[in-house]
């Protein structure tokens, strides 16, 4: 059996680690590329959203490389994501591929079912529950480390003296995390990565503006889909934070609601009075994040969504009011396969320019009022 799964940022590293610790062969799809998206476009319904198309491209490329089992996440609507796996299975079957697709539905109490599925996938005769827990722990540690790495990189990029230094360190760190096989090595690895990033030469004057990236999870997490927005903003001198990291997503989707962290519930409270209930995807979180980021002193917020994404469109419609109430600039960028890079960059530059100029004036005002 050779397992594969769709790309979403760096999630392939913990997933690969998990299955390989259980001695299951893994075929990681080639990194998302123009070819991936072309394959996806060719075989997906035109009106489907971008992530579905990229997933289909990932699957085709992985199946061509010998994978025979696809692991895909499920969902419970009202966002279309809940139906992705079913549609993708049919598309791939029509194309004549032979494979087995395992859909991991969010447990919400069906925790045992998830465990059972994992056992089937990993051949239950050979492994015990203990092995699974151990493999899961290593994968989890890696996911945590990857998230910390992303935060480090976003902090370092606007401050680097020599453009490209941060990306170089980032690539090395990714490889180191990927290679680690033992949970005991994680602690030292974390230390090494930190030292590596501390060694990046910084510019003298540097108090970069802080921008939060919110919106639909896939476009936030997958750099190919968002035209590498974190890197672009970083190089324009802005420090970037994401509203959601891989471990957040895993927590929300794998843990039953009683085990979800308390902050999460508190966060959702902040979406009031604009959106008071679950509207699918991360629509409610998007609105709540604007309030949170404003409270934490961020200078601006950028919402990302794939064209036709229902939950984010709902959220988008209340963002102008939220932006006004919390007095924080919000910009929405819609992504699709043809997102023209020049136009995208223009908007990012203008946004960074705007918040830089604004904080310049505000700090001047402060000086005047103090005197």
């Amino acid at each position: 059996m050779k397992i594969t799964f769709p790309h979403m940022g760096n999630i392939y590293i913990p997933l690969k680690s998990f299955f390989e610790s259980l001695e299951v062969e893994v075929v990681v799809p080639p990194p998302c590329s123009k070819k991936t998206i072309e394959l996806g476009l060719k075989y997906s319904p035109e009106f489907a959203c971008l992530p579905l198309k990229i997933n289909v491209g990932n699957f085709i490329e992985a199946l061509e490389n010998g994978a025979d089992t696809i692991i895909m996440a499920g969902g419970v609507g009202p966002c279309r994501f809940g139906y992705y796996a079913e549609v993708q299975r049919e598309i791939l079957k029509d194309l004549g591929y032979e494979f087995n697709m395992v859909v991991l539905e969010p447990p919400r109490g069906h925790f045992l079912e998830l465990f059972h599925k994992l056992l089937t996938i990993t051949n239950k005769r050979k492994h015990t529950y203990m092995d699974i827990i151990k493999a899961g722990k290593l994968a989890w540690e890696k996911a945590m480390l990857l998230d910390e790495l992303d935060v480090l990189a976003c902090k370092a990029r606007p401050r680097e003296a020599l453009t490209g230094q941060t990306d170089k360190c980032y690539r090395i760190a990714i490889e180191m995390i990927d290679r680690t096989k033992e949970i005991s090595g994680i602690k030292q690895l974390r230390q090494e990565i930190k030292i590596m990033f501390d060694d990046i030469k910084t510019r003298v004057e540097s108090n970069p503006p802080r921008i939060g990236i919110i919106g639909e999870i896939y476009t936030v997490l997958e750099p190919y889909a968002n035209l590498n927005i974190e890197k672009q903003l970083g190089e324009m001198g802005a420090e970037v934070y994401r509203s959601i990291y891989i471990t957040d997503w895993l927590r929300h989707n794998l843990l039953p609601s009683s085990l979800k962290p308390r902050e999460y519930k508190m966060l959702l409270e902040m979406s009031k009075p604009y959106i008071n209930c679950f509207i699918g995807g991360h629509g409610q979180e998007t609105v709540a994040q604007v309030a949170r980021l404003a409270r934490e002193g961020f200078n601006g917020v950028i919402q990302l969504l794939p064209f036709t994404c229902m939950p984010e469109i709902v959220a988008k419609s209340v963002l102008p009011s939220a932006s006004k109430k919390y007095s924080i600039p919000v910009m929405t960028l819609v992504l699709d396969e043809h997102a023209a890079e020049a136009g995208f960059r223009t908007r990012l530059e203008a946004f960074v320019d705007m918040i830089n100029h604004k904080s310049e004036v505000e700090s001047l005002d402060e000086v005047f009022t103090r005197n």
Partner: protein
Amino acid sequence: MRCSLGIDVGSVSTNLVLLDEKNNVIRTLYLSTAGRPIEVLMEGLKMLQDEFNDSLEIIAVGTTGSGRQLASVLVGADIIKNEITAHAVAALEEYPETQTILEIGGQDSKIIILKNKIVVDFAMNTVCAAGTGSFLDRQAQRLGIPIEEFGKMALKSSIPTRIAGRCAVFAESDMIHKQQMGHKVEDIIWGLCQALVRNYLANVAKGKEIRPLVLFQGGVAANSGIKKAFEEELGLNVIVPKHYNVMGAIGAAILAKKHIMQSGRKRTNFLGFNTTLRNYEVKAFECKGCPNSCEIIQIYGNERLMARWGDKCGKWSSSLAV
């Protein structure tokens, strides 16, 4: 004469502007880009050189527009700025009380909100080009009306025909339907102007508070029909600045001069007007390094590699500092 030069290479037009030391507009050029930005830019520079001979001393150069990077390499710019900032700067220079800028260009439409002379919010059209200059151009062509006459024609109408403006494709089929029903051309055009303004306000300006002074700039501001439709829809007076179609270039020139003064540099990066006589060549190739197959654009001046871009990974562009 000491002047700063502003260049705006847009999708439809390439604009050049000369400002004197007090930021007065000395000369503006509005040239059709026609898909050949390099040639048109060179042509424009040559026109300026011929007109002013040697009396011109360029003290700063700024570029903007979607072709700003390209233009910067070709002329040696001191500053490369996005269109939003450039438009806002130019508007404030002429009308310091501006609070709203409506800008409709060839393929972009944007709204800029200002407060106390700083940009506090902006939006640009996302995935839809309905209501931009290119669409109006196409409709004028289809109706056989010169684009310059389009707006005046709309003003002749007394009963606008209702046109669906949400999507360029639907708008066009709606217009054809109405014309076959016997509606007068001026009514259809006036209806189209209203539809485009509705679409702009519902789409680009959604949720933004539009307060006076309202400036309307960009190529489409030449269209008096659209201006009137804006005024009726907003209930506000809309001002079209004198140099409405080259505001981006004006902004770039102002910013370039400011940049030179602030950075304390004495000299501009401007390569001189004789760049027009230099031998430029663009060589493109497809990188085979990965399945992205990026198209790499290389610009050569006098057989020396000046700039390179187009790669996703930075393998080519970073090997040569621009």
